[in-house]
């Protein structure tokens, strides 16, 4: 039985050619949109990703305000103010975690099963998921900016735009990191261990929670390796665009952005590879 014969018996498929970039992009959009609609219809996720960091911020800020005196920081900086950008990163992290946990079940017994047998590439699927989760995270991170005046962050229009841009990069990288884990797992059982051992430490050691200047030397080395350290630096520098002296001890903007872009690119690439291997 030759290919020519089978072509004659089964004429060419009249459905759209899926190799066309437009169709793949249409699939990205549809997956992206689905993430957002699902989120809006599940109020509990909003509470988890937004309210929890808010509570952390208020409690830890209130508790540590008077005992927090790190070296190399302005004396006027309270812990509540120091922790504020860190909490924004935590909002991004939590949204990425919750969104990617959902992927595990979605793949085993949900909508994703059907997506996996559709004529779309794995890169398309991962991009749709990542953009959807990133959007959710950034919207919540942007809403958090309304608290900036309470901690004397000198927000300008440029600062807001820069901050949102940095939030997009951080959220995309963290979401892809979550997807790498989610695509490897068959159940959500182990996700909590991974969250505590990998995702939260990445955040804890990024300068979000305490500055590298006051950390033990070996910890400072680990913090310098943590890609999110540069995400935090870019975030703080964007927020304090109107007052660079407040963030003078941090890594400079341009290298931080480059590390952040590389982080987003590499995690995306690994997530696509993982998705290909998980269900080829």
């Amino acid at each position: 039985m030759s290919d020519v014969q089978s072509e004659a018996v089964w004429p060419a498929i009249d459905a759209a050619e899926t190799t066309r970039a437009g169709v793949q992009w249409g699939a990205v959009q549809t997956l992206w949109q689905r993430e957002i609609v699902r989120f809006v219809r599940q109020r509990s996720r909003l509470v988890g990703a937004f309210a929890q960091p808010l509570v952390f911020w208020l409690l830890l800020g209130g508790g540590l305000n008077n005992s927090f005196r790190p070296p190399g920081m302005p004396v006027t900086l309270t812990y509540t103010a120091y922790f504020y950008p860190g909490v924004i990163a935590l909002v991004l992290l939590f949204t990425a975690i919750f969104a990617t946990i959902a992927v595990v079940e979605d793949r085993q017994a949900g909508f994703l099963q059907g997506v996996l047998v559709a004529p779309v590439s794995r890169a398309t699927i991962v991009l749709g998921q990542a953009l959807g989760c990133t959007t959710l995270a950034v919207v919540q991170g942007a809403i958090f900016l309304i608290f900036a005046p309470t901690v004397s962050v000198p927000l300008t229009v440029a600062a807001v735009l820069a901050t949102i841009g940095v939030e997009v990069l951080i959220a995309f990288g963290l979401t892809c990191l979550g997807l790498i884990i989610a695509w490897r797992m068959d159940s959500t059982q182990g996700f909590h261990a991974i969250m505590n051992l990998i995702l939260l430490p990445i955040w804890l050691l990024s300068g979000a929670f305490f500055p590298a200047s006051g950390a033990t030397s070996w910890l400072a080395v680990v913090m310098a390796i943590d890609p999110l350290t540069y995400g935090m630096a870019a975030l703080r520098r964007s927020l304090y665009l109107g007052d660079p002296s407040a963030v003078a001890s941090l890594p400079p903007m341009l290298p931080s952005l480059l590390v952040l872009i590389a982080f987003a690119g590499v995690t995306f690439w690994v997530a696509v590879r993982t998705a290909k291997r998980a269900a080829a």
Partner: protein
Amino acid sequence: MSTDALVVDGLRHQYGQRLALAGVSFTVARGEIFGLLGPNGSGKTTLFKLLSTLVRPDGGTARVCGRDLLREPDAVRRQLGVVFQRPSVDGKLTVRENLMHHGHLYGLRGADLAGRVKAMSERLSIADRLRDRVETLSGGLQRRVELAKGLLHQPRLLLLDEPATGLDPAARREFTRTLSELRARDGVTIVLTTHYLEEAERCDRVGIMHAGQLIAVDTPDALKARVGGDVVVIHAAEPEALRARIAERFGVELALVDGALRGERPRGHEFLRDVVEAFSGELRSVTFGKPTLEDVFIQLTGERLWDGGEAAAA
């Protein structure tokens, strides 16, 4: 041969050390309804995963409407409609949203897609529920949304994994009827896995699976004709002892399957009458019937199709 909708050629797969599928070959003609019957763990779900392109086989290949599973997976995907055992509809989305998302994944859009959603929902009698969230629908209706989704892009081969699971007998019959209509109207080829006898009985041909192998393929009638005669089943307090005594007295070797004596006899009613007269004190019950596909399975494997409890559900 090239008109066959599905040509499976030596498909093999293993999970780690466990061989789930040990080289399976069969063909399904265009417009046929083909059932894969077997107990859990027989390899039929693995076969479904390979054919639906979810998992790459470790050996062998298949051609779906002339396209090779390994070399042209995207061409295969475009021709396949897949209905999973577990729901693949998003409960948080409405019926229409589910169908629209599905269409976009297949490159459908605009008026064409809207028209298909309308036509397919009318066809499967879910048109009045298009605006409802799927999670508010009954199990039977959700199943029909699954089917509408699987058919929206006009596949040539519809693959269904245990479509009867979770449906009550009435909904199950209704679902089978819908499949027959689809075949009649669109000429779509249907391959389904099942462990329900009645569902397998309604297929044009049935492949029986056991321990990762396809052990028989034929029409349900031809398979049952292989058993030959009537099926007699005898429950006794001491089946082993009775088995020996029946062999001694009548020269008939019965098989001991799942605690009961079982055999196929050309004139089963006469044989049973003789057994009852000779050993009435030792019998708990005797049954007699025309062979079913389960009898075929038992004859081929020496095992029952289900273990204990689940048999009652069929």
